[in-house]
């Protein structure tokens, strides 16, 4: 077990290194083909050569390899790695340290994730279990139809429709009926508000969770169906255990193994969804930060965020693997 964990952590670190290298090669190529991102610092002004040089040195773009297309620029890559190893993630173009920016953005994204995960678990587990329990009946067919419909709705369509069609009449109605600072009025607010971080995040989180829950729902259904026909369930029933007991301990618990692993993979999906959700609903989270720095061509922030997000994803995948082993006694890690 211990040696397995150590091997997985080392492999994970290696993957992080490869991800960093890939990102570095791509951004380097873009700089070489596209021109100097240090110019972005000056906006519309035309800097003198010495000003430009000062900025280039300040943001680590001074290396001459950035002017030679095809050069992999391994020197600056090594430099960045050693800075990351010391906990220095650099600054954005305005000089604010990346760690500060992340500290501001992270709580909102985490709140969004909490709401999304709860939505998944409740809707996915509930509807999936119901569909498996009543397999082949009308309720099963309607749940499957709903999951196909949800699948067909891209998350941004859901958000755009909600924001441009529903928020205005709903907010007007809630303000008129309950007062402008009441809970329903804040709930339907079309954009995020700093003072009420949880309330204004509930609906965007629900929508994002709803669009992601279709594959989850199908997985729960398939996993439970497999268990309904399993021999241990038949044994449990023939022992005379009650239906509720069999469902709770022999079916739902057993089918939770693939469900846990799915949470890990869907986590990476939710990161993508968060970019759109945070963009459309003006939530100041990681996705929004990333989107804004992409538009400002702030390379160091983009690389820093994607690095941190991929480290988190690798960590989640590792945890999922360990949880798999803990939940399923048949799996031995040696």
């Amino acid at each position, binding site marked *: 077990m211990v040696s397995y964990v150590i091997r997985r952590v080392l492999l994970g670190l290696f993957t992080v290194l490869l991800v960093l290298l*890939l990102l570095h090669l791509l951004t380097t190529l873009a700089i070489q083909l*596209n021109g100097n991102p240090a110019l972005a610092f000056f906006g519309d002004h035309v800097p003198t050569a010495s000003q430009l040089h000062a900025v280039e040195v300040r943001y680590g773009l001074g290396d001459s390899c950035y002017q030679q297309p095809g050069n992999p620029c391994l020197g600056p890559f090594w430099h960045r790695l050693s800075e990351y190893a010391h906990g220095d993630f650099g600054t954005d173009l305005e000089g604010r340290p990346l760690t500060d920016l992340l500290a501001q953005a992270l709580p909102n994204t985490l709140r969004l994730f909490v709401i999304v995960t709860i939505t998944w678990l409740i809707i996915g587990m509930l509807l999936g279990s119901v569909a498996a329990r009543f397999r082949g009946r009308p309720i099963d067919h309607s749940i499957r139809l709903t999951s196909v419909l949800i699948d067909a709705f891209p998350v941004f369509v859901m958000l*755009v429709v909600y924001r*441009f069609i529903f928020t205005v009449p709903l907010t007007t109605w809630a303000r008129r009926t309950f007062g402008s600072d009441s809970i329903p009025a804040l709930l339907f607010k079309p954009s995020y508000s700093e003072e009420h971080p949880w309330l204004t995040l509930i609906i965007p989180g629900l929508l994002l969770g709803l669009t992601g829950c279709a594959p989850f729902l199908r997985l729960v259904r398939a996993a439970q169906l497999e268990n309904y026909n399993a021999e241990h369930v038949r044994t449990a029933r023939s022992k005379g255990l009650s239906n509720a007991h069999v469902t709770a301990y022999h079916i739902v618990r057993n089918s939770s193994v693939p469900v846990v692993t799915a949470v890990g993979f869907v986590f*990476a999906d939710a990161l993508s969804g968060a970019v759109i959700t945070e963009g459309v609903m003006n939530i100041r989270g990681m996705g929004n930060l990333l989107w804004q720095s*992409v538009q400002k061509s702030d390379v160091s922030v983009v690389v820093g965020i994607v690095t941190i997000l991929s480290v988190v994803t690798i960590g989640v995948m590792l945890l999922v693997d360990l949880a798999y082993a803990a939940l399923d006694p048949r799996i031995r890690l040696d």
Partner: protein
Amino acid sequence: MTSAAVDLEVVTDQPGGTWATVGRHMLRRPDVILATLVSLFFIVVAAFPGLFSRTDPQHCDISVAKIKPQGFGHPHPFGTDPSGCDVLAQLAHGARPSLLLAFTVVGASLIIGIALGLLSGFYLGWVDAVVSRLLEVFLVIPLLLAALLLLSLFRNIDAGDGDFATIVQPAIVLTGFGWMGYTRYVRAAVLESKNLDYVRAARALGASDLRLMFSHILPNAIASVTALVPTAIAGVISAEAVLAFLGIGVRPPAISWGIMISSGAPWFTGGYPYLLLFPLGCLLATVLSFVVIGDNLRDALDPKLK
């Protein structure tokens, strides 16, 4: 030669049987037939937009801006947008980038995914180690983050005009981050079937590695991969709309449904709901029909559900 011919017959005979069963299963379902008709309709629209609207979508006359839908027979049957462009013409011509992108991306990722999956499952060893690392690196970076990063990094590079040039950048990015699923499925299927008796027999008869891979092992993997294709097409169509919505996919003056949705959305409450509803309806109808086909294909091909 004769022994090889016999082998081939045995191998191809079985999928033919499976495919016939799958076809019968699919044709019994009314929703599949409807979904197939809808997707065929949009494929025809994408291939021949001129059949549906004679108006040039790029020809926008501000003096006829914001005409509400008039019904067929009028010069602007679906009305015009705030800058006077004909909505029907835009809808018809907007289908092409989405569908062209979807088929290009899915085709290219299938080729990459199947090739890598076959190689890593067949040879194992260091080939498998390299492919698995590569797979993990691409899995760890979420598709949309990668698309955001790459498409904005390379946005100043002009690929030129023409249907294919407008989609080449999103196509490369979506393919680059879309092949992993196929590789995993193919690799798993190869591992399962490479030690089966008939494969050993073919190897003992002196069949080359390429022959073993393509005519003996690959047909076993095709079923599970096929079930992914319609869903993947739907996924790419909606990914294209997301990218266009974020302003980094297909960009104006080219037209796509995603662009129409993002520019039409703010007009919904101002009394022009059709500017959002028409492109949204087309997008949803296309995506939904591919999802329905994919869902039923998966059921038809899954031996566990029979």
